[in-house]
């Protein structure tokens, strides 16, 4: 039986594996940290799906699999529906008394990157959440189509240089702000929506476990720092993640029943957004005379969002 050990990092790191280390993800990829912790956050059996993307192509290349739990991949846009279909079958067979292990209740989880979540798969996720399937959807948000070489998604933040929005002589890169997926998913009335980051692992595991204990559709937006496309050294994944959460570029919070917002991490020392941007190659071109105003705008946006989250939390709406 799997043991969800969350007391300290050492015993958590030695907990049983249902997601094998034998996979093709880049060294330093945050996906593997997040996925492993999601799977280890429950002792229950798991039925998993992945949308096409880094996680999928790196963990199930025939004749190998990295998954010691039932897993399905169909296409880029429909990991959510795959798990929703499996969940519907579980309910049908339970009702008809045909489950092979009727005493066990598996958890249903779909993984997708930000491309599969914010963009191409959004309609499918929205459908699953509106219908209220008992499932968890985890977005591995690395803010870019990393699997196909770094094209922009609607999660790519303004000013980032992506291969389809490259910074150049007359362009500062991505022109649009990152889509607010948390607000959109909360607006579905989902019972639990949370943003997590792997550097704050206790917060992450607590939220995943809360999600597993919740009946109905749960959305987890997990920041997944991408060594390849964000352009930082593979050993710096957690350090970059720290910069993201401590600069409040990636605030950690949860929204319950679409209304009640709780901020779950308040950095003791908030660091400037400039420090977060400066640590990554994708923002290098912002540190020039002609683009520097964008860094100030970034800081203003992050401050405003943080203010808004705090007001939302106080309002208890």
């Amino acid at each position, binding site marked *: 039986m799997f043991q969800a050990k969350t007391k300290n990092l050492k015993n958590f790191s030695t907990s049983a594996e249902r997601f094998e280390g034998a996979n093709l993800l880049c060294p330093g990829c945050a996906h593997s940290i997040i996925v492993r912790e999601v799977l280890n956050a429950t002792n229950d059996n798991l039925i998993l799906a992945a949308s096409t993307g880094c996680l999928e192509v790196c963990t199930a290349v025939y004749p190998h699999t990295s998954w010691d739990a039932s897993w399905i991949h169909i296409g880029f846009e*429909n990991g959510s529906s795959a798990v929703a279909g499996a969940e519907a079958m579980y309910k049908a067979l339970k009702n008809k008394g045909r489950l*092979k292990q009727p005493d066990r209740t598996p958890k249903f989880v779909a993984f997708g990157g930000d491309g599969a979540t914010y963009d191409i798969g959004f309609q499918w996720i929205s459908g699953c959440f509106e219908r209220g399937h008992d499932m968890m959807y985890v977005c591995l948000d690395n803010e870019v189509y990393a699997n196909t070489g770094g094209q922009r998604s609607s999660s790519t933040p303004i000013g980032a240089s992506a291969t389809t929005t490259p910074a150049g002589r007359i362009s500062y890169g991505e022109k649009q702000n990152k889509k607010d997926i948390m607000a959109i998913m909360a607006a579905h009335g989902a019972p639990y929506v949370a943003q997590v980051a792997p550097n704050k692992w206790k917060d992450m595991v607590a939220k995943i476990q809360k999600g597993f204990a919740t009946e109905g559709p749960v959305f987890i937006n997990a920041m997944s720092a991408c060594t390849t496309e964000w352009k930082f050294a593979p050993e710096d994944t957690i350090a970059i993640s720290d910069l993201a959460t401590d600069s409040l570029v990636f605030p950690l919070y949860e929204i319950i029943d679409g209304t009640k917002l709780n901020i779950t991490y308040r950095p003791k020392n908030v660091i400037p957004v400039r420090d977060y941007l400066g640590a990554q190659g994708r923002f290098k071109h912002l540190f020039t005379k002609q683009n520097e105003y964008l860094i100030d705008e970034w800081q203003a946006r992050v401050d405003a969002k943080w203010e808004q989250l705090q007001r939302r939390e106080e309002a208890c709406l």
Partner: protein
Amino acid sequence: MAELFELHDIEVWDGNMAASHALRQAQVDVVAAYPITPSTPIVENYANFMANGYVDGEFVMAESEHGAMSCCIGASAAGGRVATATSSQGFALMLETLYSASGMRLPIVLNVVNRAIGAPLNVNGDHSDMYMGRDSGWIQIDCYNPQDAYDMNLVAFRVSEDHDIRLPAMVHQDGFMTSHTAQRVKTLADDVAYKFIGEFKPMNDMLDLDHPVTHGAQTEEDWHFEHKARQHHALMSAVLPKIQEAFDALKALTGRQYNIVESYNMDDADIAIVCMGTSVETAEEVSNELRAQGIKAGVVGIRIFRPFPLEQIADVLKGCKAIAALDRSSPNGTVGALFNELAGALFNTGTHAVLTNYIYGLGGRDLTKSSLHSIYRDLQANAEAGCPTTSLQQFTGLRGPKLSFF
């Protein structure tokens, strides 16, 4: 436990209602669907059965046809009986996932109520959607009337779920002409129909929690070819014998005889029309009229479109002098698909039959008896001349100047 639905031995059902009752009797575990004309009533009827306790599976009303088939795939991989319905644009939206379902060897039954594909937008019956599915790796069974729509659904579940096959199956009926035309349908009692289909036997089911499985793995040039070859092998070698077995069992049960290739007035036929769907019965009527005049006219109906029964078709047509392939889908740049199939079936068989192609009935345009008489007249001339006396491809029932090619 679902309520028993008392049926009369003969019901007056349209094709959609016939399909809905077959789904109900199959005790499908998960139906995930999205409504689209003209298949919508299948889904509505099923929802009605559910609302009144006649089915006890799960019913997922998806946000699109793509989502519906995606749910069907997840449900089928989880390990149970799955079915849905669609048409036309919805079928086109589903197409990506149709390849996934067959490639993952998942026995899903899809009712396709055939309808034209826009533009221009059109809700009526032609075979554009059926043709779009022909390379997708599904079994494709064609119905000519509501009775067929009922019987072929029962056959589809039985064949598709067989462990030697494990391939999804489409059951096609013509939009409105079959789907919305009420006719007498001979029924089976619920328990008899269920017994004919058989219990669902799971294989590689995700819900077997002690035996985790990986579905939908990636293969590149190292393994992809072998996977697709195995899939094709299963379609080519296992399906037709199992369908024949199911047809034989259905005949023993009901007396109704279905065949891999349906032939009518073909024993001594000199000229033959080969067609699909509702056109088959109209052509049969015209062939009877010609027979009364001493013209040896026959009809071949395609019952199984995939796998295409090349040998059986060639055998039925071997004595013919002139053959017309009727395609109810815009060929868009070549000969009709059915013409191509027949050419492939007949080439190398030693036949000297003259083969021509007619495009008809697009967007639900009626195929009239006078059109069919005209085609048979062409065939008679071709048979007598021993070579084509017309263009290879002609449009029939089209307004404006005559359109023909090749």
